[in-house]
């Protein structure tokens, strides 16, 4: 049941008191925890919103592909240009393919994909749900005896979790491919040789865990964006604020989580 109506009586201010920043931060995390628990309960109880999940997977995943490919390609080019110079200087030019592959797959591709998706999808989800909140559409869903946490939040978060590793693979592929093109333009090397040299010595822990850590990124982006959107108040200003804070907070938490996840992967896959 909603506890904060989107429309208050006109003579009740929604800004009666401003709590101090520490209290506000603790309240935010508390409400986030309640929201996450509510969404988890909604997600695991039938009926399951399969059609809506599919629609969101298309919106979040398929429609982010061009942007992610572009970002991944740029990363590959920049890495090839920057690292070649350093490696030549230290007489380690032959390590260029491996450097590009490892850098792209283990860190650059996941983090860049996460930040790009955070910007596009995080803002989109935050703004969409915020607009629905201020126009009472979420209340209408609830009044229709449909759980908005199940229909709106769980589907979007699940779509983000599934889409992120797939997008990361796409970004990694194009990052490596464009890295090869850049390297070849400076000194011709066949694609097959580049790939063989690049993946020489690569192990499971080097390739798959970094890709699947993006599932955590997807969970962060979807959860923060849905949470900020569904708690919006304040009309158009609130919608703008929801979109902005969705991007800022999801990007911040994404980067912070990367610090933790890198260490966890190193511990789990020594």
């Amino acid at each position, binding site marked *: *049941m909603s*506890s904060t109506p989107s*429309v208050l*009586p006109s003579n*009740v201010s929604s800004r009666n008191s401003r709590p101090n920043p520490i209290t506000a931060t603790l309240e935010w995390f508390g409400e986030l925890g309640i929201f996450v628990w509510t969404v988890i309960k909604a997600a695991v109880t039938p009926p399951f919103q399969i059609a809506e999940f599919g629609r969101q997977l298309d919106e979040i995943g398929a429609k982010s592909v061009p942007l992610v490919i572009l970002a991944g390609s740029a990363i590959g080019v920049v890495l090839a240009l920057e690292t070649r110079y350093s490696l030549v200087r230290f007489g380690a030019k032959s390590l260029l393919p491996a450097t590009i592959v490892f850098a792209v797959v283990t860190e650059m591709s996941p983090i860049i994909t996460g930040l790009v998706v955070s910007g596009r999808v995080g803002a989109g989800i935050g703004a969409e749900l915020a607009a629905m909140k201020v126009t*009472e*559409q979420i209340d*209408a869903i609830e*009044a229709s*005896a449909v759980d908005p946490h199940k229909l709106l939040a769980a589907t979007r978060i699940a779509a983000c979790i599934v889409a992120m590793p797939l997008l990361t693979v796409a970004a990694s592929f194009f990052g490596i491919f464009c890295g090869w093109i850049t390297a070849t333009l400076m000194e011709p090397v066949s694609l097959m040789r580049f790939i063989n040299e690049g993946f020489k010595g690569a192990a499971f822990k080097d390739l798959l865990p970094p890709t699947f850590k993006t599932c955590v990124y997807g969970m962060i982006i979807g959860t923060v964006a849905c949470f900020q959107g569904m708690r919006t108040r304040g009309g158009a200003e609130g919608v703008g604020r929801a979109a902005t804070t969705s991007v800022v907070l999801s990007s911040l938490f994404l980067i912070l989580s990367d610090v933790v996840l890198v260490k966890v992967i190193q511990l789990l896959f020594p």
Partner: protein
Amino acid sequence: MPVNDLPVNDMPVSEEYKPATKNSSEDSEPAIVIDQITKSFGSQKVLDGVSFQVQRGETLAILGRSGTGKSVLLRIIVGLEPPDSGKPLILGTNMSQASIAEINSVRKQMGFLFQHAALYDSLTVAENVAFPLIHHRPKMSASERSDCVHALLQEVGLEGHSEKMPSDISGGMQKRAGLARALALDPVILLLDEPTAGLDPISSGEIDELILKLQKEHQMASIVVTHDMVSAKTIATRIALMDKGKIIIQGTIEELQKSDEAFVTQFLHRDF
């Protein structure tokens, strides 16, 4: 003299509307029982001991000044907002103490028209109307659902607009679409939050006539929250006037006209 130019007290009550006769013991129980509801937001008390009942086939119009908690009352009835105290008994279920499953069971028997229709703007008009059917009538085939949606849109006069998006239709048409969606599950209770707000007098009259027609056909227990006295006079069997969080008087328009309370007299003569 056109009807809308007559003083409120002289306006004719619609001849079409007749309250339902009580045929069974089930019908004799009020569908809605609101008992001493209070609600505050911070230090502001918006509902202060509100009580009333609504039978099936009856339309209660709740009037009051803008921003005095009328919409909050509807939100409490549909379970979107818990009261601070009191009992909102809807079809025998206390909405403030029931489980979410029980609340949803009651909600499936209610239709709610929000003030601005609250149509889902990513769905077409037809998809909006089909929304309750998709989620609560899973065994209905696609063709049956399509026929049902078509019939509902025809009932509200929107049969040629089913594939349009909510942003492509007027405010009055959005209200009609919202009404069609509210009626999709053939509800026992209908809640309308300022159905004529923001509409021109002609569109308001059309919405009033539509509500009257639907009430006559479906015999629902209806609550209309409005500050439009003309609309209330047209569609309501009883009127309740709210002021400072309390219902100060409720009854038929004739009973209200006999009151010598200054607020009532002022409201009936629309001096706001």
